[in-house]
């Protein structure tokens, strides 16, 4: 099944079979830089949102761009210059970190080959007075830009259908996470499934995930007794780290990653008018706070979310995998890790730049897992 999931997509858009099949139907697709860009809105316009994740290739064309910024932003720019994103019809960046805010102009200036490069304005302080009203106006600009690109009107009906599809996707991913928690699926298999949902049309992905769920339910795996890790961070250009953990005798059983639970945990309301539901859920009612969110208590909310997931999936420890030069995650890290330590939860910090799992990281993960094994009395 994992092979089937793997084959369904590629993180290089020009090699992503699902994307190429979509394009063959005469439809358009756009690359997005953050899960806070409402994917339902994009899909309701008849466009396919593809999450951009960068890669680990050395930088050549982008070597002197975004210095001292994360490898994600630099490698994505490199991919764009090299033509790896040419299967896309446009890109959508977001005012979610300094590199996006200050880098947007670069993309606009040097990547004129894309007919559509949009800068999306989210709400970072959800309790600020007037936040929803502000967001509604920005969302309307976004909506109109998507309609112009696609030539399709976003109607209440198309939006409601998109919400239903993606909510189903969210529910399936949650079910898959629960199956991993029970030891039926491995950390890597589940990460593959979550990643696939960011790279495929939701109907197709829902079919794939449904068959994974069915197949997994019939498995009869022995329970996993090794160290169970919660992975905390933003995103990764591949799943090498999940594999590394398994190679070292551990298992990732939960996460708060932008390519994991943070991306799908909370469904969009179906009780409201679809447009209003999107606006509310993506702005003032956001429940999962990433470190870029600026509510006074957003770090505390993050700690609560991590501990809730750890309880749900019986995790033993937290491993932070932060992108080097990511100010938001690294400013949040000391508080979050200390709060976890106060709860006697062991933590490990991995600073990731170009490679996700080089030899030095392997040594540290091995040592950490050994310690956890001892604690578990293995």
């Amino acid at each position, binding site marked *: 099944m994992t092979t089937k999931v793997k084959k369904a997509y590629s993180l290089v858009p020009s090699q992503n079979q699902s994307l190429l099949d979509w394009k063959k139907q005469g439809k358009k697709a756009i690359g997005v830089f953050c899960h806070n860009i409402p994917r339902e809105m994009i899909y309701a316009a008849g466009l396919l949102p593809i999450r951009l994740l960068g890669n680990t290739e050395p930088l050549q064309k982008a070597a002197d761009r975004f210095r001292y910024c994360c490898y994600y932003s630099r490698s994505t720019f490199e991919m764009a210059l090299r033509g790896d994103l040419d299967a896309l019809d446009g890109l959508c960046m977001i005012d979610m970190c300094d590199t996006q805010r200050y880098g947007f102009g670069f993309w606009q200036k040097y990547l004129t080959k894309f007919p559509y490069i949009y800068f999306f304005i989210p709400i970072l302080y959800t309790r*600020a007075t*007037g936040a929803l009203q502000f967001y509604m106006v920005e969302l309307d600009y976004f909506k109109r830009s998507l309609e112009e690109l696609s030539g399709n009107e976003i109607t209440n009906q198309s939006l409601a259908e998109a919400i239903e599809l993606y909510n189903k996707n969210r529910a399936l991913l949650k079910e898959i996470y629960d199956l991993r928690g029970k030891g039926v699926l491995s950390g890597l298999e589940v990460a593959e499934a979550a990643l696939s949902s960011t790279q495929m049309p939701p109907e197709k992905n829902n079919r794939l995930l449904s068959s994974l769920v069915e197949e997994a339910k019939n498995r009869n795996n022995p329970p996993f007794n090794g160290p169970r890790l919660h992975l905390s961070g933003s995103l990764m250009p591949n799943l090498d780290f999940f594999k590394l953990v398994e190679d070292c005798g551990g298992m990732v059983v939960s996460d708060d990653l932008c390519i994991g639970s943070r991306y799908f945990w909370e469904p969009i309301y179906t009780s409201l008018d679809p447009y209003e539901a999107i606006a509310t859920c993506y702005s003032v009612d956001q429940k999962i706070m990433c470190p870029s969110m600026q509510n006074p208590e957003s770090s505390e909310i993050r700690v609560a979310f991590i501990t809730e997931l750890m309880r749900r999936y019986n995790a033993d420890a937290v491993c932070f995998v932060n992108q080097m030069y990511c100010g938001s995650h690294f400013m949040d890290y000391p508080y979050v890790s*200390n709060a976890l330590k106060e709860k006697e939860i062991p933590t490990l910090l991995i600073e990731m730049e170009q490679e996700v799992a080089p030899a030095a990281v392997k040594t540290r993960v091995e040592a950490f897992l050994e310690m956890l094994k001892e604690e578990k009395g293995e």
Partner: protein
Amino acid sequence: MATEERKTERAIKGVQSTRPVSKWLKTYFFDSFEAKKTGEKVIAWAGGYTVYEITHVFPMIIHMVDNFGAFMGTRQLSSRPIELAEGMGYSHSSTCSYYRNIIGYMLEGIGDPEFANVVGAPAPDIVLGGLQPCFMHGESFRILGRHYGVPTFVFDNPAIHPRMDIHEDEKNSWAEHSHCGGEYKHKVESHYMDYTVAQAKDLVAFLEKHTKTKYDEGKFREVLQLSDKQAEIFEQIWELRRAYPCPIGGNDMMALITPQLLLSGTELGVEIYEGVLKEVKEKVENKEGGIPEEKYRLVTDAIPPWYNMGGLYNYLREKGAISVAETYTMMWQQRLDLSLKPIETLADKIMRWYTLPSTRERADSHLRLLKRFDADGLLLWTPISCKVYPCWNSSSRDLAREYGYPVLELDIDQTDPRDYDDAGIKSRIDGFLEVIETRKRAQKG
């Protein structure tokens, strides 16, 4: 905490009239400890947005955290607190050294007598933060507020969407703004104004509550008028910098950052600027430059290495190079739209700050300075722990090169001296000035 020995010399001053600033600042630090003892004024640690005018309406003393970080750097006191913060888990490569500095200070600096004799800030009663300069500001102020367990106000400042960058002459967009403060002159959409005004009103309510003082609109109007007057004088000083030789260099202009922040809207702020204007005018009349022999006119920018201002600026001075313009020394002072209601004037100022407009606007600001101040080249500090300038600098570098200007980017850190490569930087400056010299000779034929 033991203070460190000075590692570098102080920068040689080109003007004398900025001296009252550091004198005032020392008194300010000591007064703030006194105010903390008596409880007469609320101590606010602040940063992240240019709303200092509003604080003059309430009984409070502001400690501008970034400014404080810079001050610690200039006094060679930043290494120790930075190391302390790193020991707590604040990453060397990925978090801003201003905030590593202040977090380290927060942990050990306050109350240390040796340290407090040089510089100091009493613990805050409230914290005021915002997202205007960068995202780390928002996070940092939450950390400070949490540490001290005090009420914290966060101001959300979305970027001004690039759709509002509409120019009459798209090819020469750089020419369409003022060259001093308040760069962004485009029409800002009403929902931006509404959102910013709503938050400004919340800020006023927050300050009313925590200072137990009613907001006085009449008083605020007077403060804004003074701030605008200050900006007007500031513009005149800037205009005089176009003279040959340039009467006041970047190093001296750095001293005027503090008044832009803490004294905007005060009689003292106006008085200091008037003193500087007078001296600068005299220098222009006497054809006296900010350095003894002006050979090269540079636009220098971004956050400088505060701990080595002397070493750096004295070296440039020795080589005959003067910084004739910088955005960093002007960004907090801007003319105000006094036709609006006071809270709207404030909101308008907040939205027009340098970091919120598009990348093109920011690159344009450097090109405009190069042209208007007849500069020979662009020298940019790229602070390695900052996320704003590495992107901004690259865009300015590309644009300046398109227009034929030599550009030098120097990787430094603003407050952390441990990564500073003095010899390497001097050698690159030498090479850069040689390129300029060769071009000048070629132009002369």
